[in-house]
Every structure is written in structure tokens, then in C-alpha cells.
């Protein structure tokens, strides 16, 4: 199958960057058969910056032409028609391609015998299910770039939590943190549970510009996240942070104030959602009354549970902040009272008291009448 609109050939030709070598066309092989809920695929359909259909239809200038193979969005009826490009890539007959993995990787080694935790199609010879792990082993070494979408694929996430039966892990735990694709890129992690729609599309677009030869590789941090997205904390972008500064905390979820005492981990979590909103600038987490449970983080979920209790570190820092916060809250309240009063010359009396003086000079001198008349 392919999503091949057959339009806009122009977009496949780099214009200003002719000197750089790049691809005119690239396939995206997206496997969501990890331990996942397909929520990252669904999330990506919410993106509007840019929308997925604009990228597929070639409406974003400078990108290579792409063919997307994703189970949820595929126009095929499924089965072999859908699997064909995946099988071709595994045989080394389809390149270049970007491999997108959604969901955490279960540990097949802990199963005795022929069972499996998750599969994607069948072995054509034996008819037995092909495991996700088999597909990764085949495809990752041949991929031009490898992208882990969502926290499950990036770091293990929910399905890798304490007490899990499947031994799940993130893609880098499986392939090795020093993995490099054939395009010499490390795994590109775009965490989030689910991924923030525009964060994914923006990062994918950067990878595609790079594929076109029109941009350097995306800058990633030590956990392989895009730096411009995950370089700041939730708290640094939160519109409730001012309440924290004033040591004014919500005691329950009725309050519009800072939520650190009712479970928000925002001050120590790398994520841009309060600033960017959830989609098209709408929604989010602590900015709209939802505690930050750290869903973008490698330590998610275990290090943040129980979610609805105050983070242990938060009580010390908020206590230290109390005298300062109480003082400036009082000072600001006083200033705020005066700012809420109109100037006293707003009146309907017989005399103008605004200080009107058309011949005002900066040194305060009054212009001489004789000079003015001459």
C-alpha cells in the first residue's frame, strides 16, 4: 500500500540547497505494534502545525515527497497489501526509509517456548506470528533514521512500570543508546503520553528537511529528545507559576492556583505543553487544572506515583519560599490597590486639576512672556 497522492512534484526538489545531497522521496514505515494504545498515531491526526495531510500531499515547501505506511491511516484493507513495503524493507529492497516505532518493546527472551507478547503479520513460510522484536531486528539496521514516538517507545512508559509481566522497555534500551541509523542519526525520541501532536510533526518535519539535504540533523539532548522542545520545564512555561512565586498554593482541584501541593511535578519535568497548549494552543496540563504527572519523562510513571500526592521535594522548596512569597504577595496587593484607583483629576468639577500646561519645559523654567511675544 501507499499513500501516494500523486501531486506536487515541485516540493520534492530542494531549491536553495541544491548543493547538499538529499533524497527526493522517502518512505515512512510506522509500526504501532509495540506495547501501545495507538494513542500517538491518533494524537498525530490532531496536529495542525503542520497537519499530517499537508506533509503527505507535499504542501510544505522543501520536504522530500513522502509515502506513509501507518496501519490506522492506511487506505488498504490490510494484510499483505499493507505489509508489502515492510517486507520489502526487511529484504533490503526498499530504501531510504524512516522507521517510526510506537509502543514499548516487550522482552521476548523471558518467554519459554513459542509464545509472543505482540506480533505484526505472520511468517510467510510457517504462518506463525512475526514478533515486533523480529521486525525491529530486521528494519532498524537498514533504516535511514529511527524515530521513537511517545514515551512508551522512547523510555518504556506505562507498560514498563513496576510489576509488569512483559519485561517492556524503550527502543534505545533494546537497540542500545549508542545506536546509529544508516543516516548516522541516533534514535530520535519524541516522548509524551501521548506525544503532543505538533511536537511530533515539527520534529518529523525537521528530520525530513535533513533527509532533503536542507538542514542539519535535529539537535538532541542526552536522552535523545529535541532540545528546543524539552529544554525547559513545565513550570518555566506555566501560567500558574506566579502563584508559586507568591507561595500561594491550591489546596484542592477547585483552585486556579499553583498545584504543586496537590500532585503537580511541573517544576522538575521537561516539557513544553503549558506553553504550547495541547493542540492549536488549546488545553494542556497545570495551566488548565491538570496536575503534571511527568508523562514525558524517562522515570514515568513509577517515579511520579502516587500522582495525586505532593512531590516529596516540593514541600521543602515551597516551605523555603513561604516568607518571601508572603512578603511580595502583600507588597503586590498594596500596589495593586493603588493601581485599581483612577487618578484624582477625573472629575466633573468647575476647575481643571489635571496639571494642564501647554508650555511645559523639562527644566521647569517658565518661558518669558516678552520673548514669547517678540
Amino acid at each position, binding site marked *: 500500500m501507499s499513500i501516494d*497522492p500523486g501531486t506536487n512534484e515541485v516540493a520534492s526538489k530542494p531549491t536553495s540547497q541544491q548543493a547538499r545531497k538529499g533524497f527526493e522521496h522517502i518512505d515512512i514505515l510506522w509500526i504501532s505494534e509495540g506495547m501501545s494504545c495507538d494513542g500517538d498515531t491518533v494524537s498525530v491526526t490532531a496536529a495542525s502545525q503542520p497537519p499530517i495531510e499537508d506533509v503527505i500531499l507535499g504542501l510544505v515547501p522543501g520536504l522530500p515527497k513522502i509515502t506513509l505506511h501507518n496501519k*490506522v491511516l492506511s487506505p488498504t484493507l490490510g494484510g499483505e497489501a499493507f505489509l508489502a513495503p515492510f517486507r520489502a524493507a526487511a529484504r533490503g529492497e526498499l530504501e531510504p526509509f524512516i522507521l517510526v516505532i510506537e509502543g514499548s518493546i516487550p522482552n521476548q527472551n523471558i518467554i519459554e517456548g513459542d509464545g509472543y507478547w505482540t506480533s505484526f*503479520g505472520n511468517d510467510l513460510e510457517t504462518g506463525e506470528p512475526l514478533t515486533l522484536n523480529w521486525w525491529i531486528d530486521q528494519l532498524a539496521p537498514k533504516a535511514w533514521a529511527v524515530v521513537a514516538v511517545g514515551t512508551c517507545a522512547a523510555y518504556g512508559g506505562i507498560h514498563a512500570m513496576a510489576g509488569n509481566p512483559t519485561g517492556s522497555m524503550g527502543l534505545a534500551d533494546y537497540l542500545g543508546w549508542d545506536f546509529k541509523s544508516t543516516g548516522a542519526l541516533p534514535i530520535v525520541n519524541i516522548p509524551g503520553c501521548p506525544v503532543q501532536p505538533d511536537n511530533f510533526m515539527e520534529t518529523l518535519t525537521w528530520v525530513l528537511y535533513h533527509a532533503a539535504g536542507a538542514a542539519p540533523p535535529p539537535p538532541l539532548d542526552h536522552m535523545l529528545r529535541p532540545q528546543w522542545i524539552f529544554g525547559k520545564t513545565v513550570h518555566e512555561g506555566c501560567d500558574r507559576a506566579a502563584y508559586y512565586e507568591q507561595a500561594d498554593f491550591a489546596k*484542592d482541584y477547585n483552585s486556579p492556583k499553583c498545584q504543586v501541593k496537590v500532585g503537580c511535578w511541573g517544576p522538575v519535568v521537561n516539557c513544553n505543553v503549558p506553553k504550547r497548549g495541547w493542540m492549536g494552543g488549546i488545553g494542556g496540563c497545570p495551566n488548565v487544572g491538570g496536575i503534571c504527572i511527568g508523562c514525558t519523562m524517562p522515570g514515568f510513571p513509577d517515579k511520579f506515583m502516587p500522582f495525586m500526592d505532593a512531590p516529596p521535594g516540593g514541600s521543602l522548596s515551597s516551605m523555603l519560599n513561604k516568607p518571601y512569597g508572603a512578603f511580595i504577595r502583600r507588597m503586590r496587593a498594596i500596589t495593586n490597590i493603588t493601581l485599581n484607583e483612577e487618578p484624582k483629576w477625573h472629575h466633573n468639577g468647575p476647575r481643571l486639576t489635571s496639571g494642564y500646561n501647554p508650555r511645559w519645559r523639562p527644566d521647569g523654567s517658565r518661558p518669558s512672556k516678552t520673548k514669547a511675544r517678540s
Partner: protein
Amino acid sequence: MTATEQAPAGAKRPQIVEMSWDPITRIIGNLGIYTKIDFANQKVTECYSTSSLFRGYSVFMKGKDPRDAGFITSRICGICGDNHTTCSVYAQNMAYGIDTPPLAEHIINLGEAAEYMFDHTLFQDNLVFVDFCEAMIKDTNPSVLARAEKTEARNAKIHGYRTIADIMRAYNPFEGSVYKQALQVSRTTREMFCKMEGRHVHPSTVYPGGVGTMPEPTLFTDYLTRLLSILDFVKQAVAMNDDVFDFFYEALPGYEEVGRRRILLGCWGAYQDPTACDYKYEHMTDWGRAMKVTPGIVVDGQLVTTDLVDINLGIRILLGSSYYEDWINEEPFVTHDPLGNPVDMRHPWNQTTLPLPQKRNFDGNYSWVMSPRWLDKRTGDHLALDTGGGPLARLWTTALAGLVNTEYVKSTGSSVLISLPKSEKLPEMTLEWKIPKWANAIERNRARTYFVAYSAALAVHFLDVALDLIRGGDTKVFNNFSVPDEAVGCGFHEAVRGVLSHHLVIKDGKIANYHPYPPTPWNGSPRDSYGTPGPYEDAVQDMPIFEENRPENFKGVDIMRAVRSFDPCLPCGVHMHLGKGRVLKKLHSPMFGASHG
């Protein structure tokens, strides 16, 4: 279960071909369909369904803080995770002995209404309708397309497409106008959702005891203006759907048999009424009946019950053909419900999930999905209820029960009336969904679009009530609580694609047992311990084939329409298999759509 054993009189000598589709596309999760098709008689003879994904939520939730359940269970589903959070919160409220402030209840109702509108629109127009689009029909039934070109659309005045083929062209993936518009509408409705529940698909602002959403007038203004902006689309979608589906019945006589099965529908109710609901199990019968989608079970067209206590106690989880060890000899968690009724060992409250990965064997165990059934006390049958993809069962029980009566939606006893206000292009309209003759693929799909209208109309009602509360100064959205040492709880809700229940047992302040039962285990279950096939298997088995292609280039579109009509969502799982028969030829999945788009 096999149709090939005795060929009906006049039937041709069977020419049976095995066919499988694995994985199925345009659904959420991992599903394969394994069938045998008799091409001489144009009929599916057998069908098996199995899921190939196990993640173990009920296993790793043991010992965790019960307040975390809503956050964790949301991650079960990537398209309707919020239905899980909501259902978990309902179950927790019962366990903690609290209710939700009325305004918070309406904020959740508005969020859930937006979810239904978003999800049904995305699934119907961007996933299901690819099977009904011009490009697909050109490939599978060229003569039908030729007829569609000549058939005037009855509702052209409403939706603006002159012929049926024009509508089909608008469904073409990524390029058709309805396909593209639906993606936009799915974004607008998700923005409405994010206003109420913070984030889609895993909400941030929904808690046991209420919400953290700030109930300012702006919140409701932002929701209302977006709702009004999609009303033309909703009205046109209903008109277009009616035209296309009615055309299918006319162009392909007998199409009502596609995906048809006995009428065995379950609906667990949606849209809580805060004036009735205190979340106490003892009053569940009453507050269940006050829900704005009536819970109930319909068997052969008859409404068997609308009582959530009956529904709860009748649930049985059968192992059937799944990869688990039995728990029948484990210690029970709950022997009696809070009303003193005995609770069966096969009830989710008493289930222990013991995964046992093994080789797939279609004569033995072939799925990660267990088989939920509902014990009909009248007959002793373990009924393989389906959800009709969600909307069919919701509208059917609501219509029969005659309990819902608001300004915008009304149940008449045999139909549901839906009134939508005036919108930019179209006047105020009252739509009527009437109980259909069959539970089949077409009617499951048709109901979906009507339920978008139902939810849009109810959203107007919830906005009215919420704004009244705010203007009256009632802005409370959260009730505080403490977690008891020992408690049980259950939540009943409608996930987008059908029945959803969460069953919770707390011991020593921790989760001792937690079992969510989403719609797909009901719809996509394998053969159970009594040999009863699950609803997908049942609906596909014996159905006629209308596709014009022969085995060499067969696409299987009729089978896919039957399966997709249930709105499969398989982070809870499915696969289908073939039994014994006269196999002439073995083919793998048919190819389709290499240059489609």
C-alpha cells in the same frame, strides 16, 4: 457454526478458499481476520478472531494507589482513553463514597460528548468510508459505481452532492472533500474536548471527586462557538450517510445480510445526571436509569433489562480460546455485592489474570482476548452480546426504554428524536433515528452518524445547565475525599465503541484487584468455553459476498465492512481463523490499493 457441512438445496458445489487479513488496517490496535470463503456460492463459511497483543494492565495495577487508576487506565486506549478515565472515576467515586459536584459532572459530560463527536467522525469519515469511497468501489464493484453515477442523491439539497458517486468521491482518502473536512472537524471537536478535560487522548483534569477544569464562562463560550461551527457538518453527514446506505440496500439486494447477526445488544449507559447520581451501589438501578443514554440489554428486539445491578451481576468472563490460566481455584475477592447478592467467581471482581504466552493454535487457544458474556437468567444462556459498534446499542436501548426526555433529545419508545439548532447554512432540524430491522454492518454505521448528532444536541443541553449553575454562583468542581482501607466499586459507561465497565477492589488502601472491561473483548472475543463464537466471528461467518472480483484479485471489502462496522479498537484485541473444510487453494491477504489515494 460451520455452514459448509450441509449445503442448502440449489447451492453449487463449494469452492472454498482460505483468506486472511492480518493486520487489519484503519482500526486501533492489532487485529487479524482469518476466513474461509466459498466462491461458488459467494459466501463466507468460517471465521475466527484473535488478538496478538498482551500488555497486562490488570496485572501491574495490583498494589498501586487506587487514585492512580484513572490516569493509568486511560493508557489502555489511544483513541478513547478518556472514556476509561471517566469510567475509572465513576468506579472510584463509588469506592470512596463520594459524588461529583453538578458542574463537574456536566464538564465531564461535555468532554465525553466532544469525544463521541470527534471519534465517530474520524472513524466514520477517515477510516470506515475508505471502504465506501469511489476509488474502492471502482476496484471492487464497478457496476455499483456505474449505477451510483446515475443515481441522484435524495438529500442533495442538504449536503450539496448531486449523485451518490459524487458523495463517494468526497470520501476518497486524503483528497476527497468530506475526508479532508472530517479531519478538520475531528480537530475542532478535540479542541472542545481539551477545553473540558485538558488533553486528548489521555485527559489531565479529570479526578475522582470531580475535575480541575476552571469553570469560567469563557470555558463554555469557547466550547459553544466551536460546537456551532460544526453543526452544518453534522446535519450534512447524517443526510449523506442515509443516501449512501439506502443506495447500498437498493443497488445490492441482500446487502442487509452483510455483517448481520442476531440482535444481542448491550449498552452500559452514558452521561450521568447529577440530580440523580450519588454513586452509591445501593441506588445504582435508579441513577443508571437517569443517564442520558439509557443502559440496557436488547435480545431479539426485546429490552431485557435497564438495571445496572442486573447488568453488573450477570457479567461472566469465560476463558474460551485465550492464552490464560484459569483462576477458578483462587481465593475470591468479593463474595457478595453491597446489596447482599452473591457474586460469581467468573465476575470481573473475582478475576485473576494469569497470562500464559503460547503458540497460536486455532483448534485450541488462539487469542489474547478472553470471552466476556452476559448470563441471561431467563434461559441460563451465556450471551455473546455485542455493542453494535457503540451507537447502535446506545440508540436502540435508549429508544426502547423511553426514559430520556430533554429539550434536545427525546426517546419515543421506538425511535429517538434529535433537535439541532440553526447553523450557518441550515435551519433548525429535528432528526429521527428509528429502530432498524437488522443489526448489520450498514445499520451499525448509520447509527454512528446519528449518535454524533445525538451528542451535539445533548451538548447544547449540558451547556444550558452548566451556564445556569455558574450564573447562579455554583462553581464548585471538586469534592475532597480519603481512600478507605477496604471497598469495592464499579463504573459503567459507554466507550465510543460500546460498553465499558471498570471493577475495582481495594484492600489495605491499595488496589487488590482491578479489571476494566472495554467493548472490544465483547465484540472481538474468540470462541468461548461453550464453543460460542464471538460477535465478529459470528457476524462474518455465513455472510454473503457481493464483491465482483474472483479469488485471484479478491479484496474482501464486504468482510472488512462487516468487521469495521463494530469499530474495532484492539489495544484490547482480535484475529480470526479457519476451521476444517475442503481447501482448494490457500492465499494470503489480498492485495489492494498500491496506487490508491
